[in-house]
């Protein structure tokens, strides 16, 4: 469908995915389909906590099932490189409750 909110424009870009269980995975979008299933390359998870800064866990090549995706955000790399993740503290996001 043309003109819809597809993910075509985000292919090969750095994106930030928020999953239904509240996790935040950042990586390069390599592919997607109608059901919002997503292939991410060079991905890592950003783990938020109130006790310490954001931890980054390397995940590598990842497929996320569309059912489990809440948000796909386009990462502004300038804004992102200016973020001091080691100083950022927050509760993890709540899971989606349907």
């Amino acid at each position, binding site marked *: *469908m043309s003109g819809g909110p597809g993910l075509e424009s985000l292919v090969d870009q750095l994106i930030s995915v928020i999953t239904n269980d509240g996790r935040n995975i950042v990586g390069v979008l390599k592919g997607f389909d109608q059901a919002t299933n997503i292939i991410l390359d060079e991905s890592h998870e950003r783990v938020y906590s109130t006790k310490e800064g954001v931890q980054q866990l390397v995940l590598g090549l990842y497929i996320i099932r569309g059912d489990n995706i809440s948000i796909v*955000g386009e990462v502004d790399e300038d804004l*992102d490189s200016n973020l001091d993740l080691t100083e950022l503290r*927050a509760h993890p996001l709540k*899971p989606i*409750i349907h």
Partner: protein
Amino acid sequence: MLFFSYFKDLVGREVTVELKNDLAIRGTLHSVDQYLNIKLENTRVVDQDKYPHMLSVRNCFIRGSVVRYVQLPADGVDTDLLHDATRREARGG
């Protein structure tokens, strides 16, 4: 298809989308599709201190299945028109 058409008319307007994880995101409605997936531009999270998880995101795609509410501009809905269209659709066209 009624609400799909309705949201298409709201493209370009400022809306707040509240998700089923309590996150609320404000931005300009860029596009919508048949699943009511939504793309917002110039986004900001309403409570950024509590939810700094999207600080480096300015454009985002929100899956229709996780949307709880869409807060509309006050003049964004012609209730009489929507009322009639809803009745027509309920009658089956």
